[in-house]
Structures are given as C-alpha cells and as structure tokens.
C-alpha cells in the first residue's frame, strides 16, 4: 500500500473529520449532538496529533463564534452539528457571511423539527441551509452521498470556503454520516489545497473588505501586523460601520454575487445514464443511493432512466437542471422532506414536463421501489 493512500472501512462522520484535517483545518469547536458526534470524537483525537486544537464549547452559539474567531486568526476551522444545533448557529452564520470569514459548518441532518428523532435520518434542512440566517446572501452547500464523498467533498468545502472567503455548509445526513463504507484517504498535494489570499500591501493601507479584481478581498490574520476590524454591522471596505445606502447596496449584492456569479466554478453535478434517458431522477445526499438503485432496476426492466445528482445544492444548478428538463419527458425528485429541492427543479422547468416528488418523513430511507413508483407516475 502506498504511504499516502489508506483504505479504511469507516463512518461518514469519521471521513469528514479526516477530510477536514487533510484540507488543512486545525481548529474545531463544537457541542456534540447525534448524529454528528463522531466528527467531534475523531477531531478531538486527531487534531492534537497534527498540532491543531479541539474545544468542546458550552453550546452551538459559542461553537460557531469560536470557529469564526479562529478563522480570522488564520486557522482553517470547522464545527459539526445537527438540526437543533444548526438552528442555534444561524445568527452567527450571518456574522461569517457579513465578515466574509472562511469556515466549514457540518450539519448531519436528523429528523425534526426541534429535538425530533435524534437517531433517525432526514433531509429537511435544505432550505434552512440556504436561507436560515436572515438577509440576502449567497451560500455554498455541499451534500455527500457516500463515505468517500465525506472525505473528498470536505476537502472541496474547505477549498471553496478559502477561495471565496465564505462559510460553506456541508449538508450530510444520518444515513451517510453513520454508514460505514470503504473510503480511500488520500493525501492531497499542495496544489490540491486552496489557502485564502493574504494581503501583500503595507499594513497601514490594508482594507479587509476591498475586493481584488477576482471579487474577493485578501484576508489577514488577527495577531499579525495587519490590524483590522470585523463585525456584524454593514461596513465599508475598511471594516468600519457605514450606513450609506449606496454602500449597503454594494455590499449586500456582493455577498450574493460572489457566490451566484461563480456557479461555473462552484457547482458540482454528477450525471448517470442521462445520455439516452427519457426519465430522470434529480437527487442529493443519501437519497442518491436509492435513486441509483432504482435506476439500475429500471434499466434492467428496459426503462431509460438516468440520475442527476446535485452534489452542490446551493448555489442551485439552474443551468444543469434546466437543460435536463428540456431533454427528458419527466422528472422524479426523491427527498426525505416534504418537497424542498423540488421547488427549485420546478422553477427552471420551462417546458412544464411532469415533475413528481417522492417524499418521506417517517424517518426511514426512501426505498428504490418508492422511486420506481414515482417513475411510473410520471410515465402516465
């Protein structure tokens, strides 16, 4: 076995922690909650081994505050939680958006609302991950469907977070987080890792929110010779509060545009058997596995079914889904919620093809057979 490539049979949550460390993260603050606790557990063991720091906080509000602080001090940082904790994090998530602080927030979704069923899966936080914190903003949300994804895409989450100076939400679920599966833990080379741009100007000239030509401002580290201010208030390029209408307009548009206008770089889609597909399943997260099984069964029955997996949930893959809806006769959208992603699919369905949701909120995974029933429904 090569030294830089380990084959493991581990849980998705363990792979997330390993992926974070491989991406260069060295600070975790969190409050353990089922079904995300293994991210904390593994981080508490592994971070000190690589010179990092693990802190168990008093609650989730403190947890996200701590990772924002660690990130502006120059360390890649992350936290992991589930529904109830993710709800508590929403206000400070907005602080990370406003202050343009790179960090990764892992939400291993469980059945809600509120305490719900703590050990059972759901995919009910899709819209919360997009709009849970108040005010207009862009956000990147990535959803894994395998333990390998948990490793690979966590690295990608940190890379995008650093590149776009933004919080990234890693929207896993109980099934993927707790499932044990084969994963290859590969050591990324330096060119596979993105680190935030640092300022090169004279410290007295540094403006922490003045974008370069690529639209992103360099981020200095607290404790360096660059002294700067971040806060939740609307600010100008200097970081000081500024309440002028034209400044507010510019910055609020910036928070959205820096994500939405870079979809080509950010959005990841996976296409399975779509070349000749008459019907498509649009899916994400754990439901991808049921969708692929349904596709396999349908193909064996002679039905031309394909799958489009939304690895990136937000920004939404408008172009990819629009193109799909032009090509196929009908779409099925399985989700362990009552219909969140399907709203977005319908939004770009220009030809009004039939779109059917397969929705399940009883805490059990959607079965391939339930998706096949959905395909039969769109065929009619």
């Amino acid at each position: 076995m090569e030294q830089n490539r380990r084959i493991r049979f581990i849980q998705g949550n363990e792979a997330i922690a390993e992926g974070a460390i491989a991406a260069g993260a060295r600070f975790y603050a969190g409050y353990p909650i089922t079904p995300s606790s293994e991210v904390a557990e593994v981080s508490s063991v592994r971070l000190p081994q690589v010179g990092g720091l693990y802190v168990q906080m008093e609650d989730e509000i403190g947890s996200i505050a701590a990772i924002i602080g660690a990130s502006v001090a120059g360390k890649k940082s992350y936290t992991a939680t589930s529904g109830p904790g993710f709800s508590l994090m929403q206000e400070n998530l907005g602080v990370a958006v406003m202050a343009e602080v790179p960090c990764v927030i892992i939400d291993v979704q469980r059945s809600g609302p509120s305490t719900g069923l703590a050990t059972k899966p759901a995919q009910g936080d899709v819209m919360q991950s997009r709009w849970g914190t108040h005010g207009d903003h862009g956000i990147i949300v990535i959803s894994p469907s395998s333990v390998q994804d948990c490793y690979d895409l966590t690295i990608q989450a940190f890379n995008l977070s650093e590149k776009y100076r933004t919080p990234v939400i890693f929207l896993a679920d109980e099934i993927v987080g707790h499932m044990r599966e084969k994963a290859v833990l590969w050591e990324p080379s330096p060119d596979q890792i993105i680190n935030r741009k640092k300022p090169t100007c004279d410290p007295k000239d540094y403006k922490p929110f003045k974008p370069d030509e690529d639209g992103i401002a360099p981020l200095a580290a607290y404790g360096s010779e660059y002294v700067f201010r971040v806060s939740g208030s609307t600010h100008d390029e200097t970081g000081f509060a500024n309440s002028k209408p034209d400044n507010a307009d510019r910055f609020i548009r910036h928070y959205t545009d820096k994500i939405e206008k870079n979809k080509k770089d950010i959005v990841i889609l996976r296409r399975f058997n779509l070349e000749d597909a008459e019907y498509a399943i649009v899916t994400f997260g754990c439901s991808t596995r049921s969708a692929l099984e349904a596709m396999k069964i349908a193909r064996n029955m002679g039905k031309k079914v394909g799958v489009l997996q939304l690895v990136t949930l937000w920004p939404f893959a408008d172009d990819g889904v629009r193109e799909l809806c032009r090509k196929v006769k009908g779409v099925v959208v399985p989700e362990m919620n009552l219909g969140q992603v399907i709203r977005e699919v319908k939004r770009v369905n220009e030809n009004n093809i039939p779109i059917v949701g397969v929705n399940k909120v009883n805490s059990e995974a959607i079965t391939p057979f339930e998706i096949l029933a959905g395909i039969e429904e769109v065929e009619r």
Partner: protein
Amino acid sequence: MKERWEIILSGVGGQGLIVSGSILGEAATIYENKNATLTSSYGTETRGTFTKSDIIISDGDIYYPEVMKEDAVLALAQVAYNRYVGSLDEEAVLIYDSGLVEDVKASRAKQLGFPITDIARELGNPAVANIVALGIIVKLTGVVSPEAVVKAIEGRFIKKPRVVELNTKAFNRGMELVKD
C-alpha cells in the same frame, strides 16, 4: 460467486453487533478489495433494546445500503428472532442463539440454532458471542475468506495481543460449529 450479499445482524444494544459487522466489512474492503456498507438502526438507549445492522458486500458498486432481500440473518435475542422468523423466504438462512431464543417458530427460511453466548462464556468472555456468530456466518456463506477476517481482527486490536487471541479463538470456534 453471488454479486451482492445481504446480511442482517440483529439483537439488543450492547452485544457488539456493530463491531462484528465492522470486522466483516473490514475483511471485505481492506483485505479482499470488495465493496461493503454497514448501516445500523438503533434507539436512543445504549443497551437493551432491539438493534440491527445491515451489511452489504459486493464485488460491484453498492448503491442502496439497506437489505432488500436477506441472504442471512443473525438473531442474538428473542425480540430479534421474532422480528425476522415470519418474513424470510426459502433462500435465506436464519441463525439464532439457541441459549437466548427459547420460543422457536416455523419459518420458510432455513433455521440453524447454536448456543452462541454459552460457547462464548466457555471461551472466557460472553462478549465474544458476536465473533463466534461471525465465524458461523462466514463458514455458512463464504462471503469473505476466514483469513481476511483473522487479518481484520488482528488489524483492529493490533495493540492488544490477548484480545486478538481470544477473538480469533472465538471466530474459529464459530467456524467449527458449522458442519460441512
């Protein structure tokens, strides 16, 4: 060789079924380069209530990670046995702990009872009942090679030679229980 094996390990919380499932998964993936998934269903209690793990092992890709058609079911408690005895078909094998399952019913599946926990106790620790059961499953199905399981046991308890010894003994004893 079958393309996809679907195995359920069931019992009550605390019997080490996730550990034995993990050893089986490690044997398949790390030592035999197959694919495997292990998903578990459990309550908020840590011990005493029904729990099950689904293990899928395949040479090909595994999409849906839950059992759709059981090849083998292990029941280490009456509550677990009751859950499956009526629903399995002729092609499935139901392996139960004859010391813990007292009320044996008719089933379409092939049923095999072994005093699994009693044997583990004889070996020195009832906690290795899960590994005795693993030996039975591997011998009956051939889903992975015994050598791969022993390697997985060694890999998992690498710093504890006595634990390796006890678990290897338990695994071999389980294998011996099954007549060719």
